[in-house]
């Protein structure tokens, strides 16, 4: 079956906006020389673009294999960064980002790799089945591309939603206060919006998995 066309289109637009925001953060961190976890920002950028490509055809920038390699490399980088931060925090020094946050981002990258390899892609059905009554077994009408290893997919969707819930629970109530001597870099990087972006990405990834179960 196929969702209404506007649903993946809206979600892909949100993913594009998050990708643009990540680029803004990376650029502002360079301009304002603000300490930021560039690997984490890069991971969000790649995840947003890859997820958008899994939702709509017009965001097909790279092949699934190329995206998988990119996300795998980013995930390994983040995991290594997390281990380094955990073992020698003094060497990482001014670069923010907890080992736990980097590990979580690495795990999301790994789930992204699974999604790409499991065949999660824009629907091959022309037009939407939304609003209609679809009879079972109508070839090319009611059935969509079923993902590989659905049980693993469901487990990953649950993990992603758990990540979203935990991220929201940790979200600070008030906007970040500017510390003395801060040139405004902290506000320009909008950490709360960044955290919300992560929530939006993982919920969208969970949707992309569950929408392809049948």
């Amino acid at each position: 079956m196929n969702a209404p066309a506007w649903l993946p289109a809206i979600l892909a637009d949100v993913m594009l906006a998050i990708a643009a925001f990540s680029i803004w953060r990376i650029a502002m961190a360079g301009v304002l020389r603000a300490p930021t976890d560039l690997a984490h920002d890069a991971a969000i950028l790649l995840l947003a673009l890859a997820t958008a490509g899994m939702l709509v055809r017009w965001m097909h920038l790279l092949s699934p294999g190329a995206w998988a390699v990119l996300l795998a490399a980013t995930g390994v980088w983040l995991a290594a960064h997390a281990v380094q931060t955990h073992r020698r925090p003094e060497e990482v020094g001014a670069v923010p980002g907890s080992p736990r946050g980097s590990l979580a981002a690495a795990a999301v990258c790994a789930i992204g790799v699974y999604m790409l390899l499991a065949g999660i892609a824009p629907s091959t059905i022309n037009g939407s089945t939304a609003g209609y009554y679809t009879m079972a077994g109508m070839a090319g009408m009611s059935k969509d591309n079923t993902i590989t290893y659905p049980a693993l997919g469901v487990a990953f969707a649950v993990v992603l939603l758990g990540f979203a819930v935990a991220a929201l629970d940790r979200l600070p109530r008030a906007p970040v206060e500017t510390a003395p001597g801060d040139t405004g870099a902290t506000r320009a990087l909008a950490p709360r919006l960044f955290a919300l972006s992560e929530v939006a990405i993982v919920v969208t990834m969970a949707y992309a998995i569950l929408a392809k179960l049948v």
Partner: protein
Amino acid sequence: MTESTVSAPLSSTRTLSLRSLVGGEVAGGRRRTLQLVLAGFWLLDGVLQFQPAMFTKNFVQMMIYPTIAGNPAVVASPMNWVRTIIFNHPVGTNTAFACVQLALGLAIAYRPTVKLGLAASIPWAVAVWWFGEGLGGVLSGSADPISGAPGAVILYALLAVLLWPVDQSAAAPFEAARFVGVRAARALWLIMWASLVYFTFAGGHDAPGALAGQITATVDGQPAWLASIMNYAANLANGRDLAISVVLGVVLAGIAVSVYLPWVRVRRGFLVAALVFCAVIWVVVEAFGGVFLGMATDPNSGPLLALLAITYWPTTASSR
């Protein structure tokens, strides 16, 4: 606002306004973890409601229509009215349903809106229980404890009440008692599990082949590993329906009265039995809520009953 006012339980303030539901401090700890699990369930429901099949007329014909049959007219007539609206506007209504459930999950997960989320989830769950699940088959005679009675969604409402944010310093023998009190919490547990005992023996679920037929009815379309587990269980149950019903009824009755027992270890034993019951029915009969078929609206009653059981787990203080 002083700290004592912020963290005071709702029962002590006696007022419930929209303003009082937003903001305030929410303590962490075990209770918050349970709230987050509940938020996760709502979030999962919201995302499941966005599945492609939910936007088709199959949703209302296959999910809602069958639950109307057998209900008294006073229940069935409004259900028919709602069914007609959903059937005529499947895309708009389903979008609204999914957004509401997503919003409930997000609101409970975000600390300043946890009360708003929990409060809003109660009327929503009751409405879905009636119009979407036909009161879980309680009045139609189709309710069965191993396949989701008394309706998964009503458990969300119950959990929202039991997990209402309260002062963590308030002493209670288990989490569920912190807001409603020990007496009310125990009574709710007794009613819930005693109703499952009743449903075990009502409706002819102990007839020969009934249990096996119930399991095999949901096997089609499941992944091979799950289908093999379900088929094995169906073969095991075949011809033993009466014996299984009797054993199940006795165990459920024990679970129901266990909250009144003075021995913590025995209470824990029955809670473990409840958790095992939840795990078995969730896998074997409920097939993880049918999530692999692309038509699941929630994970069904298994994990929610398990979450309920955990809220009754004796606290460290009470076990001393």
